[in-house]
């Protein structure tokens, strides 16, 4: 109890609160010895106050995280959610020729009505382009620049984008304008004489297959690593 009465008077001050030296002469402030807290004992490693401060902060942090983490996860969920593979009928194999594209309307997303539909240009494989005669090529109309819908111009044998002037040749390779890679394609298969269209995939300038990338993302060289595969799309 001796040091308790010691701390009750501010150390370094006299009876009337004026600054004094140890021998009582008023010569300015002295470094104050650190006051000992109530409950202090020799050899303590953490004060009661520090323990409670830390405990309160930890409890508050846990409570905050319990609210924030589910909310953030809820908002980020779709990034990690893989969409289901859907195969849609596009028409009989006899509907399509190897020399020209036939437009077909497919549904990419059933939840947004007309906005979820898209045109896909389909043709048979052309042996003069190095393709197999029994395969089907389905070209996406989504421009590889920023996603506007391109249109097949038959007389010019080109896909043309209305927004920023992207031009593609009959194989979907970039002929001019800002697009950074060829037009995307869709998986195709034939079942009972019907051509079916599956998930989207992207191609680089050598028409090598990659999992679907968004427009504006080049896939040649180092770019394929700077625009990595997303969790939401099937692998190529």
């Amino acid at each position, binding site marked *: 109890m001796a040091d308790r009465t010691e701390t009750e008077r501010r150390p370094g001050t006299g009876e009337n609160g004026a600054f004094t030296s140890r021998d009582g002469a008023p010569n300015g402030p002295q470094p104050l010895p650190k006051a000992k807290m109530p409950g202090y004992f020799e050899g303590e490693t953490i004060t009661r106050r520090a323990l409670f401060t830390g405990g309160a902060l930890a409890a508050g942090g846990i409570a905050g995280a319990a609210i924030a983490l589910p909310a953030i996860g809820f908002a980020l969920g779709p990034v990690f959610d893989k969409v289901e593979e859907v195969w849609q009928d596009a028409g009989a194999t006899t509907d399509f020729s190897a020399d020209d594209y036939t437009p077909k309307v497919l549904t990419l997303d059933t939840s947004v009505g007309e*906005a979820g539909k898209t045109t896909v240009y389909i043709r048979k494989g052309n042996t003069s382009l190095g393709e197999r005669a029994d395969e089907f090529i389905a070209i996406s109309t989504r421009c590889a620049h920023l996603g506007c819908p391109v249109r097949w111009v038959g007389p010019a044998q080109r896909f043309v984008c209305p927004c920023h002037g992207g031009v593609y040749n009959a194989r979907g390779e970039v002929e001019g304008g800002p697009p950074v890679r060829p037009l995307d394609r869709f998986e195709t298969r034939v079942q009972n004489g019907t051509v079916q269209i599956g998930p989207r995939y992207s191609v680089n300038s050598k028409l090598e297959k990659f999992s679907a990338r968004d427009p504006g993302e080049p896939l040649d060289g180092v770019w394929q690593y700077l*625009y990595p595969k997303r*969790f939401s799309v099937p692998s190529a």
Partner: protein
Amino acid sequence: MAIRIPKPPLPGRRKPPPPAERVNGEVTVKDQAAEVGAGLVGWVDERTGVGGFTKGMLFRKVPKGTNWFYTLGSATMFAFLSQAVTGVILAMYYDPDPSRAYDSVQHITNDVFLGNIVRGMHRWGATVMIVLIFLHMGRVFFFGAYKYPRELNWVIGVVLLVMTLMMGLTGYLLPFDQRSFWATIVAVNLNGTAPVLGPYLADFLRAGPEFGATTLTRFYAMHMLLIPGLIAALIAVHLYLVVKLGTTAPPWLKAKLPEPLEKERV
């Protein structure tokens, strides 16, 4: 051992209220009614201390040369308030469902009483707010008002600018016509072109790899709840710093030095 406890800091007795003016020594109903307003203000002030704060904020000293350019920040804030008010009213009629969004906007424009006015205020107010922000930013820049100790307020202002642009981006989709749909497709794909994180950012904005129904609700929630809340909070911090640090004099006013120093100036 006696434990000494300091006396609690209890306030003294309240002063009796000043006697109301009396006519012939009587308090009339008129006298009492005249004091109701002052009494109410006093009642609130005594319990909140808001009077001193309000006085300090409204009657603070401003430098000589303060002119109309200094009102651009307030103008921006009132544009935001106008957007908030008209936005709340529009939300009473708007339906963020892909199959009904367009029709609900047509309903607001064509059928609802004053709907075209309120929608027009919100639509043009958005543009006005962007213009005012840039004018305000230009004023701060050319007057050098971003310098020490106001750098943090400049940074907060830039964040507010970016969030206002995000408001424009998310609000553009809501009418859900051809233009807003394709503009959003392009805008999300632009976000996707950021290296490494871009593809995931685009998926986050769309809520999936393709534009879907949740894209619209997501943009709607960001447009009316998330970003406006952040903007309101940051405007409060922005204003606090303005009041705390004061405004700067225009750069064409020289600081007036004390007389002896003024003589030394060549």
